[in-house]
């Protein structure tokens, strides 16, 4: 790839770094308890929680660092941090 003159880059390049590999714990989403309030999507520092047609959370585990903020802040306690088996 050509050198970005003046040390520049176009949007999207950070996706090359899959930070999901950092994880020790992984958030599991219990959709039956979820109220689709959107809190987890708001508080995720990675912005890697998407939503389906019903507004239920769809995480992208390629980028989830397992920080646990979503689980901590979920008002319905619908997210549990589970140790990931590698």
């Amino acid at each position, binding site marked *: 790839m050509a*050198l*970005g*003159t*003046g*040390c*520049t*880059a*176009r*949007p999207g390049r950070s996706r090359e770094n899959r930070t999901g590999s950092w994880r020790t714990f992984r958030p599991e989403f219990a959709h039956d308890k979820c109220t689709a309030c959107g809190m987890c999507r708001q508080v995720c520092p990675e912005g890697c929680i998407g939503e389906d047609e019903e507004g239920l959370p769809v995480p992208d585990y390629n980028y989830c660092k397992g920080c646990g903020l979503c689980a901590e802040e979920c008002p319905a306690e619908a997210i549990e941090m589970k140790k990931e088996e590698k």
Partner: protein
Amino acid sequence: MMEIMEGSHAVAHAVKQCRPQVIAAYPITPQTHIVESLADMVANCELDAEYITVESEFSALSACLGASAAGSRVYSATTSQGLALMFEVCFNCAGMRLPVLMSIVNRALGAPLSIWNDQQDSISLRDSGWLQLYAEDNQEATDLHYLAYRVIEDHRVLLPAFVCFDGYILSHTYEPIDTLTQEQVDSYLPPFKPYQRLDSTDPISFGLFASPDYYMEFRYDTDRALKGAAGVISAAGKEFGELFGRDYQDLVEGYRLDDADCAIVAMGSLCGTVKDAIDEMRDEGRKVGLLKIRCFRPFPAREVRKALAGVSRVAVLDKNVSLGAKGAVALEVRDALYGEQIPVLGYIIALGGRDVRKKDIRQVVEMAEAGKGDLFYGLREEVLQ
């Protein structure tokens, strides 16, 4: 049209004609007449620019950096302490490949504090990646601004530039200037078309950090662009000559150098005094010539070597000193002549505004002929006691 103008006003007038969109400058002696002149033009609707009265030189160049990245033609001017304060931002502008133009009204660096002329300020930033052009007189100072904008905005260059002219000696002196019309300037200098800019319709991130895996390649790329600027300067300088009658295609200029025995090398207003002294010495049958360096960065090593090929000795006048070593120009000239058996002698001269007369030039030539060099010229022994 011929007009008698103060150097600073001639430069301000030229800058106005180049239609900068953003000017950010901080006043510092002896640059003040330029920035005051420009402010006056803006206040009287003669110049349609955003004029930012910044709180320091550091902010001045930072604001120019931002405005240039956003796609505007920018201008600033400074000297000495102000330029030193901009040190960090200078490296930034070059590394980010932003075509910022700055007039440097050369002045000595403190300590001790001095408001008088020498070339230490711009010379001390020779590593920064900025083009450096030096003017011998106010006509050249004026013309080099048009030329510099044209060169730095070329997509093959995209680097910032210093246009240097000696403080007080040129900035505050009235000389006849052959001014261009606005139409003439517009025909030579088209509107700025940035290679890339901050734009929400095409977002780019500027100024990423580079790990050891990438840093060297960026530095090489910038060095390559600066060296390549030499060709762009020549072409633009030649076109200037064809359009307006004053040719600037040569990065160096010889004066009575062809059959010279002793060559003097100098930059800036000193060249005028040297030429007068040479004329006197030539009348006495002494074969002395001048190699004037107009472009110091990129350093025209090949041109210097070619121009000095036939001389017996070279006397380099340095209005600066790399403390602990030698004068910067002498070191580079010596390097350019590496392998040739031509002695290169350096003379630190005229620091802090000390006057140089024709008799001083004659004395330098005598010293060079006696093989005496690499010294501070004209020290007042009684002060040193």
